[in-house]
């Protein structure tokens, strides 16, 4: 059922309602003493409960700050944890790649050195078999004639 009332009727109804509730408030002042006291006791209990809640929250907050103190300078919002973890892995990945490149270049360098020695031996006037000849080694160790 739809109830439609004119503005003046609504205002009159509002005024009537306010007068009724004013009487209810007036009657509230006549509440028995023991009821008022029990309400006061209930209120005090609720407030002490709140005090306890606040002190517990403060202790929890202080403990979490102490635990997270060392990472606080790097800290950000907690929902960005995976992104931060990915970023923190970047230097590690770069280090691994650097090692791989370094090892590869070292291998190339060693190969080049061996190749240069081989080239020098092969292109020298002295044949490589001469180094295996005991007489040649003795010749090398012997001082030149001019120094005699």
């Amino acid at each position, binding site marked *: 059922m739809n109830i439609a009332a004119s503005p003046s009727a609504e205002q009159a109804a509002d005024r009537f309602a306010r007068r009724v509730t004013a009487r209810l*408030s007036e009657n509230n002042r006549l509440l028995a003493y023991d009821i008022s006291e029990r309400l006061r006791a209930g209120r005090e209990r609720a407030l002490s*409960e709140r005090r306890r809640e606040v002190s517990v929250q403060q202790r929890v907050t202080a403990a979490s700050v102490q635990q997270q103190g060392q990472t606080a300078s790097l800290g950000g919002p907690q929902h960005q944890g995976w992104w931060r973890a990915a970023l923190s892995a970047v230097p590690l990945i770069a280090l691994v790649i650097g090692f791989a490149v370094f090892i590869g270049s070292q291998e190339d360098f060693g190969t080049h050195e061996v190749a240069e020695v081989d080239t020098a031996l092969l292109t020298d006037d002295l044949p490589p078999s001469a180094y295996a000849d005991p007489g040649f080694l003795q010749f090398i160790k012997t001082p030149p004639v001019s120094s005699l």
Partner: protein
Amino acid sequence: MATEQELSQFLKDVEKRAFKRALYHVRDEEAALDIVQDSMLKLAHHYGDKPPRELPMLFQRILSNCTLDWFRRQKTRNAVFSRMSDFESDNDDAVDFDLLETYAGNDHTQTMPSAEEHTQRVQTLQSIEKEVQELPARQREAFLMRYWEEMDVAETAAAMGCSEGSVKTHCFRAIQTLSKALKAKGIEL
């Protein structure tokens, strides 16, 4: 976040009205006191960190829920103890009359000079209170939240879990009923 003083002042402001509202519903002083105390504890425990402007609506919702919980517990208990309901209904009437007699008795002794007028006034207040108590539960809730707790229509609708149109309808019917009942008793406001 409401300070302790703000929460204390808020509870002090609403506790008597909350008690009366619970009493209109459950018609049992002890139960009404328990409901109000539970409501205050829940507000402080769960919503003590809310800003002061949110407290009235939160408290009204908690009070309504605590009252509903009380009725549910009564229903369960009555289902177990089948004869308890008859016994309780007798008690309700007795409590109701005791409450009214207590008011009349206390005030009679306090105001000797205008005793007759005062008695008439107290009787008028009691009649009004009785008529409010006789309203259907939803109409009474809407009426009291809207005009006694001074909540607007939207807040009342949110607290009652219904539409704003329903609140207006409940309020209008409550006012009509009260107006007729008080006029029939010859009470002019």
